[in-house]
């Protein structure tokens, strides 16, 4: 009986090892492959963002000595580009493509009663570290949108970090704080790592793509989505620019 047990243990250990090796070898080699890069332009009238009244939170208010902070629904960069646009490969990967979640976490910081970053991506199963740097009460809520990911709503009344994961691809999961109604962030959950976010210069870049023809979607919380079709091969870099117009 005991012998049978040890055989079982060996078998389990063996299969675990096989699985582990399989998972290891299946990961696409880092930094190889093609790149899609581009710029997100903004035309039209830049909407005025409401100022945030942080007088209820002196700790946060003190972090903006120059001018009161404004909401971040539309952030137009000084060079006329649009920030916080989530650009990702929506379609085109082979059905068999599988990527394990990276072991490193993605961090969302609550600092100065704002989320950093405001729009960002994560892989299915990858840890999201939710950090409260303010040390005052925030609650962090991931809203349930119906069928993809379960929601959560955690209280963080002090400087602390909570970790959560997402089980299904979803563009986008809305994150919010209800104590501070102006705090919103948007999280794109994907089964792969082919995504980027337009930053302070309006550019994004998606790297390590296997050869293929991809549907690339650019998502903005106010202006919706736009798509482009891009074909890449080898380790080439292709450009896909997007333009959103203010209304």
């Amino acid at each position: 009986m005991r012998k049978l047990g040890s055989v079982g243990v060996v078998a389990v250990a063996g299969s675990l090892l096989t699985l582990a090796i399989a998972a290891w070898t299946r990961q696409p080699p880092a930094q190889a492959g093609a790149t899609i890069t581009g710029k997100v332009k903004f035309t039209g009238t830049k909407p005025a963002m409401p100022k945030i009244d942080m007088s209820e939170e002196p700790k946060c208010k003190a972090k903006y000595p120059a001018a009161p902070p404004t909401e971040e629904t539309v952030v137009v960069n000084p060079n006329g580009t649009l920030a916080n646009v989530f650009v990702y490969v929506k379609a085109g990967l082979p059905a068999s493509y599988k990527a394990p979640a990276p072991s490193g976490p993605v961090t969302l910081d609550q600092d100065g009663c704002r989320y950093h970053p405001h729009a960002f991506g994560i892989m299915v199963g990858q840890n999201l570290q939710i950090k409260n740097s303010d040390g005052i009460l925030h609650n962090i809520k991931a809203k349930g949108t119906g069928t993809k990911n379960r929601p959560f709503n955690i209280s963080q009344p002090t400087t602390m970090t909570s970790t959560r994961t997402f089980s299904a691809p979803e563009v986008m999961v809305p994150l919010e704080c209800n104590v501070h109604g102006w705090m919103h962030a948007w999280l794109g959950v994907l089964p792969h790592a082919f995504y980027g976010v337009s930053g302070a210069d309006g550019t994004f870049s998606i790297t390590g793509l296997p050869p293929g023809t991809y549907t690339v979607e650019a998502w903005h919380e106010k202006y919706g989505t736009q798509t482009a079709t891009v074909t890449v091969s080898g380790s080439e870099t292709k450009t896909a620019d997007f333009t959103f117009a203010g209304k």
Partner: protein
Amino acid sequence: MTNRVMFCVTLFGAAVSTPLTAYRSPLTAQDTVKGKAVYVKWCAGCHGDTGAGDGAAAPAMLPRPRNFTGAVYKIRTTASGQLPTDADLMSAIDEGLPGSAMPAWKARLSEAERRDVIAYIKTFSSFFADTSQHIVPLGFGKEPGGGTSAQAVKTGRSFYDSIGCRKCHGDQGRGDGPSAPTLKDDAGFPIFAADLHQSWRFRGGGRTEDIYRRLRTGLDGTPMPSFSDLIDQKFLTDEELWRLSQYVRSLSPAREPEVRDVIHAPQLGGTLPAAPDDTTWARVDRYWFPLVGQVIRKPRWFAPTVSGVWVQAVHNGRELALRLCWDDRTLSPDTAWLAFERRVLETVASDDSTPPVAGLWPDQVAVQLPRHIPDGMERPYFLMGTGTDPVYQWRWTSEPRRTVAGLARGLEQFDTLGAAPESQAVWDHGEWRVVLTRSLATPDTANELQFVAGRAIPVAFFAWDGSNGEHGSRLAVSTWYFLALDQPTPPRVFVSPVVAMALTLGLGFMVVWRAQRRAGGSRGTGAGVGAGAET
């Protein structure tokens, strides 16, 4: 590498632990076909044919009926974001959700029907069929003793402050915190931070244990988060969270207030307590009168925020003082709540010819009396009388801060009279305390009720929360109750027993004296007692 192995171990662990999902169906005899029949008959009117919370009655409700399609449930025993257990769903159906339109079904549906309907409700969301969803109730432990002691409550209060409950629930717990006017639920509907002074209206139950569970699990779909991470990370101990629950419980009466029909106004000597915070009021019995939305005349109002009013009354033979206290999280008019008011009016269906507009309305309360004390049981129409049979009312408003008296002839017409009661009011952390004082007798005997001690005087109450868009016929109403001014105790009440006692005593002495005299007369005959007995 290590992480990858860990990943696999986790997968393996998950596979081994799948029997846990057996918890999914601890209830047997579930039948979705029968469940559908029950659902269509009893539930769909509010929750909708497709379970989206959009039944015919839903638009008039706030909070709205649950949308089952996302499988996000407020009242659970599972961690934030997890699906509820079948037992959680069963208890919501059995007990209802107090403070909402969801009634208790335990007495109306058989156990089999309730189980079947649970099975059917679960078909509205794909999450329940997803075997990767683990449904594991949290371990809650037991409430530590000494929960009602001053020290426990004080400890609980310190955590109420340190973990920021006041941000939404307010300093004294009446849902008037600085973030309260911004709150929305996941569907975008306005949502009120709970008034912690009305535990009988807590959706998941008002026991300390229920409060503790809500703190651990959060109320999914609402702004109320879970505090379990704080325990996991040792920022709070389990006992401290229990103390917080005990503090919250201590804010409400020990039992749900019982509705009694007659307000007794004791007679006091000297001047009456005209100030709302006069210490005399602490010694006067208070009476609870529930209020409900006015849904009889258009435009109707389905979502009042004043759920009831506490009433106390005293008189001194010359004047009557009536103290009304009610929870209202807003000191209306308040521009900070204007956007919230707009969302409420957009959410709750209106039957007005023109859609209601959010405005800076005052808070109001009305005390309604008949013009004359009726001889029989006949009373004017409770909803502010009629054109031919008006009622006498006192109407207090928060702005301008004053009270007027007048005759109401239905909801639409109010004719102000010359004289009005004196009034003083205090708004304190989500509670109005108003005292109205008037002479028992007035010159205008035709229109103004003349208070007489020892009579049952009909009385009814109405309230408007201005920041909830309430004015005119959008208000909360009560039915008729009675006010009885206690009569002064006449001297004979004290004298008669003494006289009666003296008479009884005297009579007793006489009987004993006579008996003794007779016994004394026969003494010395020896067999006298025996002979007496024989006669």
